[in-house]
């Protein structure tokens, strides 16, 4: 069984700074780390490997600048078997589509893949689109917001999803793609042996020529969307605290909403 885990390098700080002239993230001088949800994606894959160590292979893959190699080394240090870095000048400025397109090409190049696991979302870009887009491009079934992965049969998963509507349990045939929540399990610590191996591991770097992609199909040029402006939202200053018993509060809230002309009231 071959599992691919998609990991993204994100800035370590929670309060990401934005360059007001270029509208891009200020990455200089900010330490990087693995996207927290991708640590859970890796853990989910490792738990599957724990069940059958000799027959499960995990490849971690990331698209990013050369220093994104660090997150791959980190994943290898926790037990992933192989890693691929997708890095090329031409990939710069990719939107979620171009990111997914590039990742999809790389996964096709990897050959037979049974399961792809992504994080729920990246804490910087925050779109949660890459997973579903990737599955669509690869023509795979997918499930998002997965909190638990079990096996019904060797090639059929039973997954649990957490959504706003509630908990759903799905049967998913392999190959498939999942995006996971932190409920899949606490990410494990580094292992001594795996870290030694990771330090000596030569991470292959694939660019557009390796993936046989045109410059126009990737990066900024291959993107349908462009960031025009990024800004911190204005804080709403209007705040009213409603007090009283629950039914009084409800009545007051109803009045307020009605006064503001909320449709249907």
């Amino acid at each position, binding site marked *: 069984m071959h599992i691919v885990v998609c990991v993204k390098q994100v800035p370590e700080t929670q309060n990401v700074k934005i360059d007001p002239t270029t509208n891009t993230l200020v990455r200089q001088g900010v330490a990087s780390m693995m996207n927290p949800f991708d640590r859970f994606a890796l853990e989910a894959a490792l738990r599957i490997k724990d069940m059958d160590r000799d027959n499960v292979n995990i490849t971690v893959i990331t698209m990013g600048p050369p220093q994104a190699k660090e997150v791959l080394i980190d994943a290898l240090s926790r037990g992933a078997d192989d890693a691929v870095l997708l890095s090329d000048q031409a990939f710069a400025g990719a939107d979620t589509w171009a990111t997914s397109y590039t990742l999809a090409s790389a996964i096709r190049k990897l050959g037979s893949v049974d399961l792809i696991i992504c994080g729920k979302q990246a804490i910087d870009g925050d779109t949660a689109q890459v997973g579903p887009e990737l599955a669509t491009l690869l023509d795979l079934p997918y499930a998002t917001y997965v909190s638990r992965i079990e096996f019904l049969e060797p090639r059929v998963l039973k997954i649990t999803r957490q959504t706003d509507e509630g908990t759903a349990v799905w049967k998913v045939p392999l190959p498939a793609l999942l995006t996971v929540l932190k409920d899949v399990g606490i990410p*494990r*610590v*580094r*292992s*001594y*042996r795996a*870290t*030694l191996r990771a330090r000596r591991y030569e991470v292959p770097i694939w660019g557009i020529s390796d993936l046989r992609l045109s410059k126009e199909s990737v990066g900024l040029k291959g993107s349908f969307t462009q960031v025009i402006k990024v800004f911190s939202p204005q804080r709403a200053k209007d705040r009213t605290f409603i007090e009283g018993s629950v039914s009084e509060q409800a009545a007051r809230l109803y009045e307020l909403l009605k006064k503001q002309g909320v449709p249907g009231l």
Partner: protein
Amino acid sequence: MDYFLTEEQRLLQEIAYEIVKERIRPVRAELDEKEEFPWAIMRDLAQSDLFGIWIPKEYGGLGMGILENCLVVEQLARGCIGIATTFAASGLGAYPIVLFGSDELKRKYLPPIARGEKLAAFALTEPGAGSDVSAIRTRAVRVGDEYILNGTKQWITNGGEADIYSVFAITDPSKGPRGASCFVVEKGDPGFFFGKKEKKLGIRTSATRELVFNDCRIPRSRLIGKEGLGFIIAMKTFDKSRPGIGALGVGLAQEALDISVEYARKRIQFGKPIISFQVIQHKIADMAMKIEAARALIYSAARYLDTKADAPDASKIAAMCKVFASDVAVQVALEAVQVLGGYGYMRDYPVEKLLRDSKILQIYEGTNEIQRNIIGQELNKEYGRIKESFIR
């Protein structure tokens, strides 16, 4: 200070300290308060490969030595010596098998200990036999293809939690100290029971229990080495493990110093940080000097013992590491509480725990008085062999 460690040795420190930062520090106060066994952290340590440190590679370990064990337990001790003791006691329990076990015993017991799937324990002390180990009364009688054990062991670290026990028992009472032997006993063996978990001053997350053998039957093949080797096995094991107790002291003292200096730089009294008072500076200077001296002793002693497996002065050197660094740990932890004043006395800060925990280092694996006896007796013997006179 640079101790010229190899890349591998530094990596061991790095991984152990990562576990301290991410897993141990956030829970140590709670584990202490609840006196709860640190199973979750044992699983982290298992995943880190560290349980294999001194188990030979052919049995699934990392095949490393005393120095590497010291480096790891020193780091773990910065987190909690209750946890570090739990970890180290598994190595202590495995060591008799590593040193003297048959290939069969090694193949059966060492791989799961190296993987951290099973914990081991070392069972020597009895109610009537503490410092005087020759007074042990647990008996092992051979009947056909089995040994039958009867007796009680007291204060055994990992008792009840471990699956594999190295147990010392008398096989021939007529032979005195040469009549003791060492056996592997498994949790679940018929006639093997556990007493209640002891309530302690410190290292409260670690489990300390009584082991009771009531016609406990084990296969003959569980004998480690030969009959009569018991005390030799115990002493050789202590020669390997005692520098590690010293290293626990260094790690604990380092944590106490780190907290003291950070606190002294922030705490304002009389309009300035208390670190600007010379008395506080001298306190932390003394703490730092003692720690560095202890660390330097342990690292060089460990290197020496690792390179010279049959060093004639091994027991003396190992005892020096244990006494010196454990005394440093108690002194430094005590001073740390003083530097933090009333805050240091409160459970909201970690130093009162460091003080409570530190005391055990002067007691277990042979009290510091017994270690000084070993050192003194060895000096007496050494100087008896020297022909030159130093007195003119």
